[in-house]
């Protein structure tokens, strides 16, 4: 055996030390027992899923317990803006567009890539929220969901195949559609523009086309229109696939269809709230969220498509979540331009399109 020189031994010891240090830097930050870590997230099933899929791993590693600030994305974002000087939440769940907007508005802070040991396992298409530099990321994705169509097969005999079917005269006053503030609305404007001969850069025809729709109800989530669906006042709706799966599970007679022009992909994520003391703890929460174990748990609870490459869903669950080859049926948008155009487009929808809709 070759004898080890002192210099070589020192080098090896140094390398081992550096390696150990690197490992320890990715370890969970220890905090005082009883520390509360506040998660700003959608309420109901999403809160329950975060608690069940992320909570135990996070708490056992750090000692901190999860507290929740729940609500729709808009009010929670608005609360972060109002509490900018002294925020109460540590991390914020939102669409990738909301995370980009939050970074620009200075209410969210980027995470260091080196603190996210699971980042290498995340699908490339899911990394839509860029950081200000190569060392950071603006926020991590936590799921993929698809905005598609659901309809009552008892009341609609001619199959639905396209977004264009929403304009069929028999659906006037029977359609549940996205509110003008809905996260998918920029995608819907582009879709309508393309149906009317426009494009992503020529959206005027899209606004005109949308003004011709006759929705009965506008909303953000399935519970906004489910009672009208049950009563027969709504027979077709635009909705996220995961919520349509929940409805089917609850015995709603609703058929789902991905329009031939493709469904609209929505990548939701988690960002760190700026101005909170426990940045390392927040980074660990983000890392736990994108880990394979939490991703599987979130898919099981929410029927959300996982963004971690290593996650293998059981076939029954796979049928309910967007993953694998299925993502070819979806259209992905860059959230950055949407942040820029959103205020003007929302104002245009509010003042020019909405008055024509006469929706609830």
């Amino acid at each position: 055996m070759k004898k080890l020189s002192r210099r070589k031994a020192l080098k090896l010891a140094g390398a081992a030390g550096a390696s150990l240090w690197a490992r320890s830097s990715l370890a969970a930050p220890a905090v005082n027992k009883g520390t509360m870590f506040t998660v700003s997230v959608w309420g109901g099933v999403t809160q329950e899923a975060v608690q069940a899929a992320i909570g135990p791993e996070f708490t056992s590693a750090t000692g901190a317990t999860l507290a929740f600030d729940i609500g729709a994305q808009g009010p929670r974002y608005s609360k972060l803006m109002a509490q900018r000087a002294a925020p109460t939440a540590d991390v914020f769940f939102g669409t990738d567009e909301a995370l980009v907007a939050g970074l620009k508005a200075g209410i969210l802070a980027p995470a260091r890539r080196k603190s996210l040991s699971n980042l290498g396992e995340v699908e490339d298409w899911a990394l839509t929220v860029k950081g200000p530099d190569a060392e950071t990321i603006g926020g991590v994705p936590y799921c993929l969901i698809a905005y598609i169509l659901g309809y009552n097969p008892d009341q609609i005999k001619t199959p639905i195949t396209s977004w264009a079917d929403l304009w069929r005269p028999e659906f006037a006053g029977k359609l549940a559609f996205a509110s003008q503030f809905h996260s998918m609305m920029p995608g819907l404007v582009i879709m309508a523009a393309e149906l009317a001969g426009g494009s992503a850069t020529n959206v005027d025809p899209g606004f005109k086309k949308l003004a011709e729709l006759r929705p009965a109800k506008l909303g953000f989530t399935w519970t906004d229109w489910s009672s009208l669906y049950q009563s027969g006042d709504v027979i077709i709706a635009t909705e996220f696939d995961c919520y349509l799966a929940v409805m089917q599970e609850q015995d709603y007679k609703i058929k789902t269809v991905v329009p031939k022009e493709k469904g609209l992909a929505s990548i939701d994520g988690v960002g760190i709230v700026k101005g909170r003391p426990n940045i390392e703890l927040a980074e660990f929460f983000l890392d736990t969220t994108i880990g394979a174990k939490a991703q599987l748990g979130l898919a099981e609870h929410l029927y959300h498509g996982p963004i971690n490459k290593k996650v293998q869903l059981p076939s029954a669950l796979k049928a309910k979540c967007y993953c694998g080859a299925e993502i070819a049926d979806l259209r992905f948008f860059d959230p950055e331009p949407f942040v820029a155009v959103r205020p003007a487009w929302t104002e245009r929808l509010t003042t020019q399109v909405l008055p024509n809709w006469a929706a609830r």
Partner: protein
Amino acid sequence: MAGGIEAGDALAVGLAPASRASLSGGRRWLGARAGRRDITRLLLAPSLVLLGVFLGIPLIVVLVASFQPNVLIPRDAAGFYNYTYLIAQPYYAKILVRTIWLGVVATVATLPLGYAAALILPCLRGRLANVAVMGLTFPILAGPLVVILGWMALLPAHGPLFGPLVRWGLIAPPRIIGTDAAVLISLVQFMLPFAILTLYTTIKQIPRELYEAAESLGAGPLREFRDVTLPLSMPGILSTSIILFSLGASSYISPHYLGGAADLTLTTLIGQFILATYNNALASAAAILLLIIMVLCMVGIVLLFRPLIRP
């Protein structure tokens, strides 16, 4: 007050001793009155401080914010552009008019209903009176959200109210939710207890002797109402109208849950600016406009009713 005592001292110069003695008593009286005023002011102070700090300062902040540029109206300096934008855009101008219209219609619809109930309530005795007051004021205890949720369950075309009639083919599916009718119905129901309680207190304070005098002079119930009850309850009608208009025009829950998506009022518009588009400047301008409208309409109500109030 201090000025008043100094004036008293000046008057005392050159008066006879007897007059001075009586003046000394008056001075004690003045002193006691001044003390009472001091106590009154002290008692008022906490409320005034509370209002000043938690209403006055936020109002100033809102006022300042309403002049700031924003993402829709980028400008280099503060100005009135948020106001001109809200007034010039037909969609927003319609919302301003709608807010006033809803407040006025809800007030006009609620006032006679409340007045009729307030007239009957003093005639009830014992347990029946208590039950009636409890029943009429229950919506206040339940809160507007609970009441609105009830309406939302009741009013759909295929809901429990219209559903059977639609199923039996007696009526076409009506659309109530998402219309002004739904908002007005819920507003009237919510505002009614406030009207009844305010008017009941006023009507109950009218002395019985006046009715006895009217009866002894041969007045029937209608004449009693016309010459005694109505004129003497005018101050109550005035204050009730102000309360009702304020409640109607500033209501958020009814128009939000029962109104049409495009049929906003100023309150729901402010809510959208804050919660959906995060446009604080436009929200502030809309809030100040709402405040101005409320004040102007209240002045209008006072001017309308003042000639009818007997001194």
